[in-house]
């Protein structure tokens, strides 16, 4: 190397130092991820391959892959329900958030920040507390359903709580900001002149929206999908607070296995299946509909 032949050591050390800079900058994040992500994940996988029970002499690491087989076969319907609910919730969130964010981004003017704040304001309160509040609002004899019943508009045994509707509605409410913010960011970045240009070229408002705004906002839709669908699949709070006897989700099962049954290995296997499954889904989704491809196909 040239640096070795030069009588001046300074440039060499400077270039070395410069080469080291990216790694130094990465170190805090790498250590953080190592300690708080990689290590717990390793623990999770390790635990998931243990056999035994807490009271039956403790757990032993035995490469117990059968945990996975049992975890999947015994809980298929809960996995299926979680995926179904999460799909419905994601679609509902997108349908609700897209028009709202479109309006704020394009017509919000100087009120943009205030309007965004209005959407986010309720979410400054704890997730669980807000969910519990809904169980008061939606109570069978509460402030909404009580008057409806008294007016004879719904039958006396009508209820919203303890039904799948309540769980899906609760999740939609809770995950809305995770859908809204990425949508807003991508819609806000769209150059408004492009829409004007489309109209100049005799495009209708709808066509301009369909062929200009929608394709350009797709990266936001993609991010919104990820940020909504993934946590919604693992959610258990809404099912626990607002659900009934037929709304148990996989998150509730994992919680039960871990805390009630102390079957740490089964719980870990279930969590690993959920995580790997979500990862694969997202990976396939990203590969099949990689955002750039989506944009290209939508434009054509």
């Amino acid at each position: 190397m040239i640096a070795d032949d030069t009588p001046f050591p300074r440039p060499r050390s400077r270039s070395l130092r410069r080469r080291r800079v990216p790694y130094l900058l990465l170190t805090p994040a790498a250590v953080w991820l190592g300690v708080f992500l990689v290590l717990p994940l390793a623990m999770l996988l390790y635990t998931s391959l243990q056999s035994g029970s807490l009271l039956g002499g403790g757990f032993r690491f035995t490469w117990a892959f059968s945990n996975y087989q049992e975890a999947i076969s015994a809980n298929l319907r809960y996995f299926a329900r979680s995926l179904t609910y999460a799909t419905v919730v994601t679609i509902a969130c997108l349908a609700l958030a897209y028009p709202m964010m479109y309006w704020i981004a394009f017509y919000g003017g100087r009120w943009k920040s205030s309007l965004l704040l209005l959407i986010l304001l309720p979410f400054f309160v704890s997730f669980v507390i807000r969910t519990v509040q809904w169980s008061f609002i939606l109570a069978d004899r509460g402030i909404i359903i009580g008057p409806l019943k008294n007016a004879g508009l719904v039958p006396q045994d009508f209820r919203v709580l303890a039904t799948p509707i309540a769980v899906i509605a609760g999740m939609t409410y809770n995950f809305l900001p995770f859908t809204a913010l990425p949508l807003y960011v991508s819609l806000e970045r769209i150059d408004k002149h492009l829409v004007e240009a489309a109209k100049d070229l005799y495009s209708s408002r709808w066509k301009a929206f369909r062929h200009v705004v929608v394709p350009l906002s797709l990266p936001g839709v993609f991010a919104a999908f990820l940020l909504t669908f993934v946590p919604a699949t693992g959610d258990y709070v809404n099912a626990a607070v607002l659900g009934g006897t037929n709304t148990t989700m996989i998150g509730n099962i994992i919680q039960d296995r871990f805390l009630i049954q102390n079957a740490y290995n089964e719980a870990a296997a279930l969590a690993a299946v959920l995580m790997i499954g979500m990862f694969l889904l997202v990976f396939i989704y990203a590969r099949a509909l990689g955002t750039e491809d989506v944009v290209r196909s939508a434009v054509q």
Partner: protein
Amino acid sequence: MERMGDRSKTWPRYTRRQVIRGASLGLAGLSLSGLLEACSRQASPAAGAETFDWASQKKTGHMVFANWPYYIDKKKVDGQVTHPSLDAFTEATGTQVEYLEIIEDYASFFGKIEPQLRAGASTGYDTIVMGYPRWFPTMLALDYLLPLDETLLPNFEKYAADAYKNPPYDPSPRHGVAFASGATGIGYNPDLTGREITSVKDLFDPAFKGMVGMFNDTEDTPNLTLLGMGVEPSTSTPDDWSKAADLLTHQRDSGVVRKYYGQGYISELEAGNIALTMAWSPDIHQANLSGYEHLKFVVPEEGGLLWTDYLCIPKGAQDPLDAIAWLDFVYKPETAAMITSWLGAISPVPAAQDILSNTGFAAEAESPLVFPDAATYQRLHPYRSLAPTEQQAWDDVFLPVVEGG
């Protein structure tokens, strides 16, 4: 590694391997293999535990007490919430109590402290509340509790009701003293049921479709159902279990059950979302005191269940002498009266009854669900105790029920 020194106080004996294990836990971020080893450690054998050296302990003047919210007497003085029983304890012994209302349900609390206990570390608590049927015996089986020195419990010896002196699941030396007991029965709202509730069968009545609450655990729900079938839970067979599970499944799938509840059932009963529900007697008592006088509690004619919450000292506790002094102080009739006046749960101290009736708590003093007579105790049954081998079979039968369709 300052914890190691502390731990030696109440973890009486530890081997070199355990020390290494503790050290590796302390260095969790650096030593993956040590951590993995610590986590795969087996439950310690029960035998070596019964030799705790109380004599060499020193009073520290400090104690950390972990309890449920609303589970001790409370008083507002100048806008400040105080706990008269704890204040009296501090006055009598000089021990300051750090009182933490952090147990929101036993399962999560156990999940939180179990890793420390398993690793032989201190949980940071000196006194905790753990309940029979499930978690107190679990802590016992795992040998996570300090054996108590009877000579340090003079008030317990003197004032505890016989029923609480020798629970079959905690033979000598005892590892806990009863804090409060209660009955599992049926709570109901007569306005909504339209009739008095008397039987476990009422919980299964299709007339109450969608208005019945059941518990989401695998103790109360199965055991009460067994009682309803006329089967004594403690001698029930796997055959009885599957019959009970069939009944429960039918009850669920025909829409009678609204939901399997944890703590949340009481607010649902208050709100009128459910008309009748499995219930713990002190909850209905407290609801009656807080504006829901119309709610009723009944021990069904087939019988109810008797549960008990225990005060116990987890291993690794750093102030064991102060803690055991509190365990004993609870058994002074004056203290028991203070606590019982607030909880409305069954008191293990019969002598508190006179104090209560003389201090304006006649309702509590006369309630058979605070000071049960022999006939009431007769109607409250123990739960099915399960050997580890049976537990799996039991869970396999009943978990699918309460986890829902």
